[in-house]
C-alpha cells in the first residue's frame, strides 16, 4: 500500500504534506491579503489565494483542507508569480498551488469547472509524449475531442494556416523513446496507480 504524499492513506494534515513537498509553511502566512489584492483572477476564484492559505492553516478541521482541494481556484491560478513576488513572508504560493493540484487529482477531488483547463493540459502533454514537441494542430484537435468544444476557433485555424503559423505535420525529436520512458515513469505511473 502506497503511503506517498498523494496517497489517501497518508494521515498527516494537508498543510504538513504541502510543507514537505514544497517547503511552503502556511503557518507563516499572517493573512495580509497582498496575494489576493494582486491576483489577476482573484475575482473569478471561489477562494482567493489568501483564503486558500487560511483553509490550510485550520489544520484541526480537515473539511477546510478538503474545500481547498475541491476549489476552482487551484486550477484558475495562472502561475503569474505576482503573489509570490509580493508576499512579505516570501511564501511560494504558485508552488503550493501546484502541490494542491497534484493532490486534488490524485484524490479525485477536481472541481468540475476545471474540466476544460485540464483537458487542454492533457491534450498538450499527449502531443509532447508522442513527438517530443508540441504539435499545435494535433493538440487543438485532441482538445476538441476531450472538451467537446468542436466549433471553438474554427475560423481561426484557416487564417493561421495561411499566415504560415499552423503546420500540418508535427516536428519530432529523434530520441522519442527516451521521452516515452520519461512520461511512463512520471505522469503515466501516477495516473495508473489504483
Amino acid at each position: 500500500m502506497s503511503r506517498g504524499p498523494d496517497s489517501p492513506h497518508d494521515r498527516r494534515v494537508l498543510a504538513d504534506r504541502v510543507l514537505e513537498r514544497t517547503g511552503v509553511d502556511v503557518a507563516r502566512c499572517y493573512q495580509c491579503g497582498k496575494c489576493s489584492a494582486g491576483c489577476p483572477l482573484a475575482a473569478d476564484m471561489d477562494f482567493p489565494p489568501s483564503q486558500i492559505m487560511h483553509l490550510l492553516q485550520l489544520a484541526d478541521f480537515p473539511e477546510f483542507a478538503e474545500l481547498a482541494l475541491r476549489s476552482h481556484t487551484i486550477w484558475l491560478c495562472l502561475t503569474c508569480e505576482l503573489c509570490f513576488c509580493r508576499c512579505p513572508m516570501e511564501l511560494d504560493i504558485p508552488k503550493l498551488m501546484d502541490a494542491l493540484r497534484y493532490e486534488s487529482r490524485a484524490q479525485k477531488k477536481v472541481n468540475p469547472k476545471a474540466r476544460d483547463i485540464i483537458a487542454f493540459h492533457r491534450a498538450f502533454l499527449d502531443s509532447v509524449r508522442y513527438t517530443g514537441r508540441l504539435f499545435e494542430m494535433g493538440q487543438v484537435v485532441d482538445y476538441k475531442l476531450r472538451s467537446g468544444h468542436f466549433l471553438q476557433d474554427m475560423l481561426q485555424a484557416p487564417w493561421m494556416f495561411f499566415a504560415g503559423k499552423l503546420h500540418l505535420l508535427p516536428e519530432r525529436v529523434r530520441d522519442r523513446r527516451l521521452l516515452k520512458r520519461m512520461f511512463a515513469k512520471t505522469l503515466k505511473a501516477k495516473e495508473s496507480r489504483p
Partner: protein
Amino acid sequence: MKTGFYPGCSMKGSAREYSESLLAVARLLGRELPEVPDWNCCGATAAHNLDRDLALALPARILAAAEKAGMDEVLVPCAACYSRLSVTRHELLEDDALRARISGLIEADYRGTARVINILEWLAGVDGLEGLIKTPFARKVACYYGCLLVRPAGIVKFDRPEEPQSMDRLMKRIGAEPLDWAFKTECCGAGFSVSRTDLVARLSGLILEDAVSRGAEAVIVACPMCHLNLDLRRPNIEKSSHKKIAIPVIYVTQAIGLALGIAPKKLGLQRHKVAVKFAAAPSSGTLKDADPSAGISKSGEV
C-alpha cells in the same frame, strides 16, 4: 562563450515570426545562434500543473543537451520556456537528491553549467547596435514584459519585478520613446488562451486599453504567449471590451529589425492578425501624437 538557442515549440509554429526576426537580427549582427541539439518541449504550464517530476525532467533534458554540446549559455526567447528552464535549473542546483533523481529520468548527468538567458539579456549584451541603425524606430511604445521575464525575482534574478526597465532601455537605443504605463508586468492570461478564452480576452483587453490610453502606437512584447493573446485573440478582446482596438503588437526583435533596415517581410510582420501599418520612421506629420484614443477607432462598438 558559446550561446545556444532554444526556440521552443511556439517559435516553430504560431510564433514563427519571432524566430524569423531574431535570426534575421542575429545574422546582421554577426552572431551565431546554433539550436540546442534535438531539443524537446519544456512542458509549459501543462507539465507543472499535472506532474512535478515531468515538469523538471523536460527542461532538464534540454539543458543537459546544451551542456553536452559545450554551450555556456542558452538563449530562451519565449518568456514561458525561459521561466520553466530557469526554475528547473534553480531547483536542481539547490537540491542534489532531486538533481540525481531527475538525471536518472533523463538518462543523462545534468550538472547545471549552462546559464539560461532571456532575449532582453541577450540583446543588452549587443554592443554597437546604435551604429547599425538605418531608420530610428521613432514610435511611442508600451513595453510589455508580462509575468515571467521578471518573476519570481529570486529565481530569474533579472531586472526589477515591478516596473522593469531593460526593454525600455533597449527601445530607447533604437530611437523609440517608451511610455510610462501601468500594465508592464500584468498577466495576459497566458496558457488559458484556448481553455478559458473569456478570461484571456478580459485580462489582455485591460493591457491593451491602458497602452492605447497612454498614446502608445505599438505594444512591444518578448513572449509568444503574450503575442498570441494580445494579437491573435484580438477579435475575442474586442468582443469582450466592446471596442475596436487597432494597436499592433510587435516582437522586440521585429522593432529592432525594422530599425536596422531589415525588410518587414523578413521579420514576419505580415503574419500578424492586427496589421502593422508602419515600417520604421513615422510618416511625417500624420502622427497622432497626444491623442489618447489614437489606437481605438471612434466607430466604437463591435
